[in-house]
């Protein structure tokens, strides 16, 4: 009887959702059954089974992620484009380059869900990010200076409390002394090849640090039409005349 009621309520609840939301919700409830309620974190879907296998287990909601490299902004925009919900973008005022909304649209992220906070002081930006995370929003924080330990920990706690995604975009050289000590994952992203919108784009992703698993290095392809990631084999970039023997 109780199961029936639950089923009916679930059905009512699912009716108002888009297909991807439904999938997210079901995936989450399955995970809740698998690992128990306490351990349950919202996972995202990335558009293909292989990508889900790798990124779905690393880029978790309710955790902080640091992204560096030349394509940091692009990678954050692409991932956020795959998930629902309002997003707070905390940008440094006076930075040489600023987010350009028409480019975001092309990356599959609707700027209509974005609230942009432009501030000069790093502490104010951090405060805004805290407030956003606690409210359950996804937050992108542009940062040039490393966090101190307590600030990093507070950011992590706020992120866990809200359950949104938190991306820290590292501007400046990403090296061993990374910006966010508490980051669950640390990525380095760069564009491979020179494809432009609307042709499929390739990204070289380097997972430098992974608290929930092993680091790794992948090349992924982003399809602008279906807004999905797919994995590309390592040999994809070989010149056309490479002999088969070399590959083997």
């Amino acid at each position: 009887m109780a199961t029936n009621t639950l089923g009916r309520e679930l059905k009512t609840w699912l009716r108002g959702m888009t297909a991807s939301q439904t999938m997210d919700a079901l995936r989450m409830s399955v995970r809740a059954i698998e690992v128990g309620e306490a351990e349950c974190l919202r996972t995202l879907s990335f558009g293909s089974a292989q990508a889900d296998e790798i990124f779905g287990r690393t880029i978790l909601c309710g955790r902080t992620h640091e992204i560096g490299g030349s394509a940091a902004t692009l990678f954050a925009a692409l991932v956020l484009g795959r998930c629902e919900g309002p997003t707070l973008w905390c940008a440094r005022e006076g930075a040489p380059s600023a987010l350009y909304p028409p480019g975001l649209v092309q990356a599959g992220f609707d700027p209509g869900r974005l609230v942009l906070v432009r501030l000069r002081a790093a502490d104010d930006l951090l405060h805004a990010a805290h407030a956003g995370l606690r409210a359950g929003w996804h937050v992108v924080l542009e940062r040039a200076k490393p966090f101190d330990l307590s600030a990093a920990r507070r950011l992590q706690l706020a992120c866990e409390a809200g359950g949104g995604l938190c991306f820290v975009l590292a501007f400046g050289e990403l090296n061993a002394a990374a910006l966010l000590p508490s980051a669950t994952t640390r990525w380095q992203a760069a564009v491979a090849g020179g494809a432009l919108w609307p042709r499929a784009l390739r990204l070289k992703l380097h997972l430098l640090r992974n608290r929930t698993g092993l680091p790794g290095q992948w090349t992924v392809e982003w399809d602008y039409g279906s807004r999905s990631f797919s994995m590309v084999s390592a040999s994809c970039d070989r010149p056309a005349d490479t002999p088969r023997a070399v590959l083997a």
Partner: protein
Amino acid sequence: MRDAPFAFVAETANRLVLQAVNGPARAAGVAAGLSLADARAICPQLLTHPAEPRAHARALTALARVMEQFSPLIAYDAPDGLFADMSGVAHLFGGETALLARVTGRLERFGLCVRAALADTPGAAHALARYGSGCTLVDVGAHRAALASLPVAALRVSDEVAQSCRRLGLQTIGDLIPLQRSALAARFGLETVNRLDQALGHAAEPLRYIRFVPPLRETLAFAEPIGRTDDVERALTHLLERLCVRLEREDKGLRLVSFTIERVDSGLQTVTITTSRPNRSPAALFRLFRDRLDGLDAGFGIERVHLEAERCEPLAAVQVKGLERFQAKWKPVRRRKRDQQKTTRANSVSVESEFAQVDKNGQASTADDDLIDRLVNRFGHDRVLRLAPAESHLPERAWVAFSAAVASLHPAWSAPPTPRPLRLLARPHPLKAEDNADHRRPPAAISWDGRVARLTPLAGPERIEPEWWRDDPAWRSGARDYWWVRADDGLRPSGPHPDGLRLWLFRVGAEDAWGAWFLHGFGE
């Protein structure tokens, strides 16, 4: 001043005319409507001051509040009078004579020259107050006789009508009464007949009574001055709760609230917060205030605090029961929640959790609005932005930012037809072309801060013309040809982008006069 002849002067039709005169001036033979030159001739010691219609209107409103103690129904008799409905009131003050004396006495204490009349009809009272002996009491039914001796102008008719009456030998209202109505209407218009009937009580005269709305303001005074932050916070919570209860009764929500502290040294400090949607949740409002309280300086102590609603908007209470079980676990989709609120209505507001408050657009204040309010109140409207597309083909003008507190706008974005960068430079950065053999194509290499990068063209050119109807300094150099190029790892050593980059370059100029290359954006 009270004993000297005094008049307010206003300029009408290029001459200075007396607008209002006081008792001594009247006694000296000066009357309103006289030109200043004539008045000076009659009464050389006349003091004058330019009329201030706004201040007069404000003063009249204040007097209306004063008159409230005598009658619940007060109406304006603009520009210089007030009607008070005294039906059934006089016995409270000991009869009509005593009442009239009390009213004039009360108003004279402000230093005013009061002319009052108590009569059966508003028209008669108006006429007798202005053209009577100063303080007139007319017995019930006697107004007809009292009016008969007054001039026609007392009837609230236009100057032209009064003048033509005089010319025809109709000096007083008494002369008008026996005349045939139809003849009177044919010559002076229906308005005159109507005014006469109203004064005599043959026609109804509805008055627009003033409704005084008590200001949404709460005050708390302390026996001992307070200074600790905790105490101020507690006082604020208390005031917010009181104000929100009042708002709930009126189905209103706050948009702009100010909190003022009064210090013992009579210094005033105010903190004002705004909300993106009407809000009457004490907890949410308190959170908005809390970030700002640090700016207040208690000095030697605070002896009084005020909370005032400066702007309110309708906010109805609507039931949203049914999904709590899932709402607790997962965040519901906002659109769905709103649909529910539209369909179910309730008429009680007692249980907070079962009700959402919706504004006039049917939108509920949500946790998201709460966040935006907090950010806006802390950082300012120009720092917390939402983005909307704009109708322009110039890259910099293709979007606009507006304050996130303007919540009703939900712009629809569509992708531009050609590739656009993800990050745009605040101003284009000049590049030094190292090797530019073919002028129609981007250079093979550029140097940037002393480092050289090799370029591979990806797409282009895309020509963007300036908008000729707008003088934009950045676009004065003319049309631009935009190119997408890929720069190799040459920028690696200490630049911000260690890997290869897709760059958005442009150059100005045409076939015969090529200009310099500029970097305008990054593809990632």
